[in-house]
């Protein structure tokens, strides 16, 4: 599948261009150089002697660099040109681009190389929602550099563009007029520096290295990252490409938030290149068996930013783990609450779940010790704030209607929580998976209290509370006549009776009683929920179902991966394997990179999963889905001392070897192969 944009990125800096390499932002083309949720360059258009070169190929070398091979042609059927153009671009704190023009002819040639440059300094929210600017844009040419700037009160952002060749510099770009000898070439390198909120401090603390040094460093970092992960050997050949793609995309999405050591995963390109509590936690969980350090960084980073205060604008309450943090203009001027925003009802439980999983997998007690205070604050939030009306369940309702999120569970689009007839459920909403997460978080925290924090009294209390919740939940959420758990209890404590993938998360958390789990599994594997490519977010039998509805019918690979992990927990090995196989086969058809979501059309109708129009790609938890699927297929777990391997692999996937799996055991190998047809 060929996309019409090309992206390179590092951390929160990314460039989205067309396949020529040009940036030409418009309401429909979200091109640009972005840093800290701001577009620092909206136009970057190359012409050679008045012609925009035609792309011959794009060499997407690494996530941080790209080459565009082009020809200067008049656009007739055959490319008949003596001038070729090579654009090499590498990400920096902006980017560096070398434009090389080669004259293949036998005569010298005079060319005019022109770059049109502009910056609109749009906040990412403005780009997405097409809003107008409030402050003042300015441009100036000083000392051979073009500065594009934006000022609103004390909010100042600038882009500085310099060239290494003399030419004409205007406020709207650069022009060079080289004479290129026959069979020779000419090149110019342009340095684009995006100067964000901390540029002057970083000039002193962390001076920007030259692009070639940075490029080499990024290359080394990527090599080390991939080498540090387990090595995969699989008889199903596409698995290698999918696995490597996942590791490389995770590397690309890593980013430092500056308040704690290490890098945590940003949520996704282009809209979500920021720390998102839920996304970073779930992705770190999915990838724990492969790159455990990422989980430690996620826990430390989110722990540092845990809410201290009660702030309705930010949906913040003491102990809550953040939903999202942004640094653009609308956040700076508090038009938006992401500084940080805490409107996530599940991140706090997921924080505790990952903390325990990391501790048990790695045997590294330091993180659980270091974050004991934060973990206790998180537990306090669950009971004293999460359960808003003291009915024994965590529920959510935004406190500022204009800026808060209506849905604060992972299905956070406005229409995701609906009854079977399509009617929206009134708030506050207590979605079922939130209760599962509470159950799991309390049991896991109990183990930490017992084994790490030396607090057996708390451990006993948490275990008891978890079991009481389980009993209550299986009574209050079960829909007897349909045989599955309600999606939620609404504001009037009515059961929201849609059949959704959320019931799979109840298996992951372990809150479902065994007899009820059996019935849920039948639903999960039915034609209504299992599309053949994964589990639909909403069953095709429901009133709101739409195969291309964001959370009401599409398949989300991460969702399916957690459902599969849950099926394993309850002993449904073949069913789990079937879902994992489906996700991996879908990944193969997406060139190894699963998107955030794809259409819920049945596999019997399509030989390939149907793309969802605005899905992020790469997206962190979609990138993590094949990793969790691999862990599920091999049945990898830790008892705190040993690596447990209990494979259940479907026939077509043959044999899977995962070598050098890191954990509390040091490094161990895991093997699995399909036996008979039972797992197929």
């Amino acid at each position, binding site marked *: 599948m060929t996309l019409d944009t090309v992206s390179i990125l590092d951390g929160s800096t990314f460039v989205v261009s067309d396949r020529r390499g040009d940036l030409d932002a418009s309401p429909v083309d979200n091109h640009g150089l972005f840093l800290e949720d701001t577009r620092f360059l909206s136009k970057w258009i190359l012409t050679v002697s008045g012609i925009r070169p035609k792309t011959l190929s794009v060499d997407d070398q690494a996530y941080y660099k790209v080459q565009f091979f082009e020809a200067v042609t008049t656009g007739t059927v055959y490319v008949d040109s003596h001038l070729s153009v090579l654009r090499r671009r590498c990400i920096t704190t902006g980017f560096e681009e070398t434009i090389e023009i080669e004259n293949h002819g036998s005569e010298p040639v005079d060319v005019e190389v022109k770059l049109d440059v502009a910056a609109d300094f749009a906040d990412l929210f403005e780009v997405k929602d097409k809003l107008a600017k409030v402050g003042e844009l300015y441009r100036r040419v000083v000392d051979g550099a073009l500065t594009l700037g934006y000022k609103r009160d*004390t909010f*100042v952002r600038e882009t500085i563009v310099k060239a290494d060749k003399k030419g004409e510099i205007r406020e709207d770009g650069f022009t060079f007029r080289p004479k290129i000898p026959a069979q020779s070439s000419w090149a110019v390198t342009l340095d684009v520096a995006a100067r964000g909120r901390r540029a002057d401090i970083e000039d002193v*603390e962390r001076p920007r290295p030259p692009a070639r040094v940075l490029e080499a460093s990024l290359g080394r970092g990527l090599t080390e990252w991939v080498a540090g992960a387990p090595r995969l050997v699989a008889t199903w050949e596409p698995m290698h490409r999918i696995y490597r793609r996942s590791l490389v995309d995770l590397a690309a999405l890593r980013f430092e938030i500056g308040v704690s050591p290490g890098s945590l995963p940003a949520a996704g390109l282009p809209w979500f290149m920021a720390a998102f509590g839920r996304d970073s936690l779930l992705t770190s969980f999915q990838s724990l068996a492969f790159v455990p350090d990422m989980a430690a960084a996620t826990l430390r980073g989110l722990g*540092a930013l845990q809410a201290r205060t009660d702030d309705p604008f930010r949906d913040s309450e*003491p102990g809550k783990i953040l939903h999202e*943090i942004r640094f653009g203009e609308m956040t*700076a001027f*508090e038009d938006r609450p992401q500084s*940080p925003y805490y409107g996530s009802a599940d991140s706090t439980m997921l924080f505790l779940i990952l903390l325990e999983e990391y501790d048990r997998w790695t045997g590294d007690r330091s993180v659980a010790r270091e974050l004991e205070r934060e973990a206790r604050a998180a537990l306090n939030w669950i009971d004293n704030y999460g359960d808003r009306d003291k009915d024994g369940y965590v529920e959510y309702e935004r406190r500022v209607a204009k800026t808060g999120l209506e849905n604060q569970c992972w299905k956070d689009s406005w229409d995701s929580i609906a009854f079977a007839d399509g009617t929206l459920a009134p708030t506050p909403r207590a979605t079922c998976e939130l209760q599962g997460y509470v159950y799991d978080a309390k049991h896991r925290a109990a183990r930490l209290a017992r084994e790490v924090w030396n607090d057996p009294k708390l451990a006993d209390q948490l275990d008891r509370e978890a079991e009481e919740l389980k009993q209550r939940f299986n009574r209050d959420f079960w829909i007897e006549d349909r045989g599955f758990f309600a999606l939620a209890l609404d504001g009037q404590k009515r059961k929201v009776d849609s059949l959704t993938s959320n019931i799979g998360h109840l298996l992951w958390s372990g809150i479902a009683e065994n007899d009820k789990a059996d019935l849920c599994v039948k639903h999960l594997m039915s034609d209504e929920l299992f599309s053949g490519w994964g589990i639909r977010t909403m069953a095709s039998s429901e009133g709101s179902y739409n195969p291309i509805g964001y959370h009401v019918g599409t398949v989300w690979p991460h969702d399916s991966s957690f459902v599969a992990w849950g099926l394993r927990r309850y002993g449904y090995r073949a069913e789990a394997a079937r879902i994992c196989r489906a996700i991996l086969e879908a990944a193969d058809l997406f060139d190894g990179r699963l998107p955030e979501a794809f259409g819920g059309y049945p596999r019997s109708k399509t030989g390939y999963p149907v793309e969802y129009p605005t899905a992020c790609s790469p997206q962190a938890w979609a990138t993590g889905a094949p990793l969790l699927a691999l862990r599920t297929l091999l049945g990898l777990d830790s008892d705190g001392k040993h690596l447990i391997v209990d494979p259940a692999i479907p026939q077509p996937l043959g044999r899977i070897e995962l070598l050098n799996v890191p954990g509390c055991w040091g490094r161990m190998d895991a093997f699995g192969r399909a036996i008979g047809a039972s797992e197929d």
Partner: protein
Amino acid sequence: MANESGEQVEGERRWPGKTAPGLAGLYGRLRIAVAGQPVATLVVEGMYVALVPDTSGPADATIMCADEEAMRKLLRGELNPFIASMRRWARLAGNRGFGTRVILGLQVESPFADEANKEHLI
């Protein structure tokens, strides 16, 4: 010096401190500068914090306030460090993790909430 994991470092001079529950577990020194000039140091020792005029010696982080108003907001616990950084009212250099935790920690019952209203804090 600072230790975000909660270990107190030996040899640190102990200033007469005020109780600051939001700073529990934090140890270190946050230098405060206003308009480019160092003016004070916030000495943090777990639940205790002292604002001292001493600006000599090492600090774990420096909060560079654009003006006194920003500094007062910081001490009163009214400063959102992220908004402040985006608007360039106050920005951190050095150990940003420590500095951010101190600023966020002061949002919980800051001991300077009343005193900081006075014209001259230091």
